[in-house]
């Protein structure tokens, strides 16, 4: 039994999830691969979105994957860090915007 929950080498085994449910696994990967193809957004833009989301949901596999993917696409570390600050701003903002609820509650309770 592994002593840690995450093993970096598990990332390359991602495709194996189809072994236990071929139909749903295939549908997922078809969908996944289609999502990242160039559309209204470029593959490069999608890679940066994925990197920011990966940090927001704190998925170590996704962080490894989309850091590597970004480097492959020539995305610079400055661009990557800016994308992360967008994630950080939204995440921080999501906490702070609830401050309005707190303020409403205080105002209501105190009259």
């Amino acid at each position, binding site marked *: 039994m592994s002593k840690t929950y995450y093993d970096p080498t598990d990332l*390359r085994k991602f495709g194996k999830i189809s072994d236990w449910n071929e139909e749903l696994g295939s549908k997922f990967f078809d969908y996944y691969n289609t999502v990242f193809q*160039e559309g209204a957004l*470029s*593959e*490069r833009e999608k890679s940066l979105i994925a990197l920011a989301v990966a940090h927001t949901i704190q998925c170590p596999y996704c962080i490894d994957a989309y850091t*590597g*993917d970004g*480097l*492959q*696409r*020539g995305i*610079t570390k400055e661009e990557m860090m800016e994308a992360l600050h967008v994630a950080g701003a939204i995440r921080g903002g999501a906490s702070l915007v609830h401050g309005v609820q707190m303020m409403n509650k205080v105002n209501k309770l105190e009259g």
Partner: protein
Amino acid sequence: MSKLKTQSLHKRDSELAKTNKQLEILSNGIFANGELPTFKDKIAESNQFPLKPKPLEILQINVGYMCNQVCEHCHVDAGPDRKEIMTKETMQQCLDVIKSTGAHTLDLTGGAPEMNPNFRWFVEEAAKVGIKDFIVRSNLTIIRANKKYHDLPEFFKKHNVHVVSSMPHWTRGKTDKQRGEGVFDQSIQALKDLNAVGYGMPDSNLKLDLVYNPSGAFLPANQAAMEKDFKKALLEDFGIQFHNLFSITNLPISRFLDFLIASENYEDYMYALVDAFNPSAVANVMCTNTLSVSWDGYLYDCDFNQMLDLKVASKTKHISNYNEEVLQNRDIIISQHCYGCTAGAGSSCQGTVA
């Protein structure tokens, strides 16, 4: 961030300067214990072993390992301290072959080929043969390195040379990290000099192509997408134009192998290459239509095999007794570094192959 070395592996007496040490690393470990399949076994799965040559299309001549740069990932281990330089006599033997071969492309490389003292004579003589595509792989900075090289754009133009130049990124930081401090600014100026005489301009017959190789332990992305990004950035930031971008995968040999081992990326990189193996790229790998000639006249299946000292498996091993018919019957020599040419869309000195 690792500091760029200023000396070749050879000068530093590094273990990895020895080709048998590199081949040993590529054959042992994950490839010996069965964790990953050898390249031979992998191509055998699709009945492509042994790899055989097709009719020769490209003759690639390495005129010497001397270079004004010491790039982090150089597979040649080139640098100012390398003294291996092709003699005029060997160049003459190459010219005799160029005249007789059916190859449509002549490809001069190095080191910095311009640093060979007989480079200009060789270009003048080779241009007379009238070969369809005459490539010189110029590292760009050589054009700015010394006054005596400043007229190279005009010289290339005069002999209708197709200029192919390395450019790892459109930003200073990434370029200088891989190729040395100041390389980006010098390269930009050299590209402007080439543009000024007509190289790389839309509709110009003076071909200027760039070569992109990743600046670390990762594979290159889609060549067309990278070309689009390069063109946009170089035009917007510097007013520079060029024709095509060739995307090349770093092969795990020489200084890149040294980097992979030192940065503890070797196994992950080999996994990435093997995972990205594309059987349809095998049929078009460059060793099937190219021959590589070393500074001392020996023949190799490709420039990478040259750097691993894996001479062609043929009775004809030297340019002085060149025999195309005999060479056509050889088996191409392979090892695990060959995975670099079959990953994803494939990789060659002319970019992707699949």
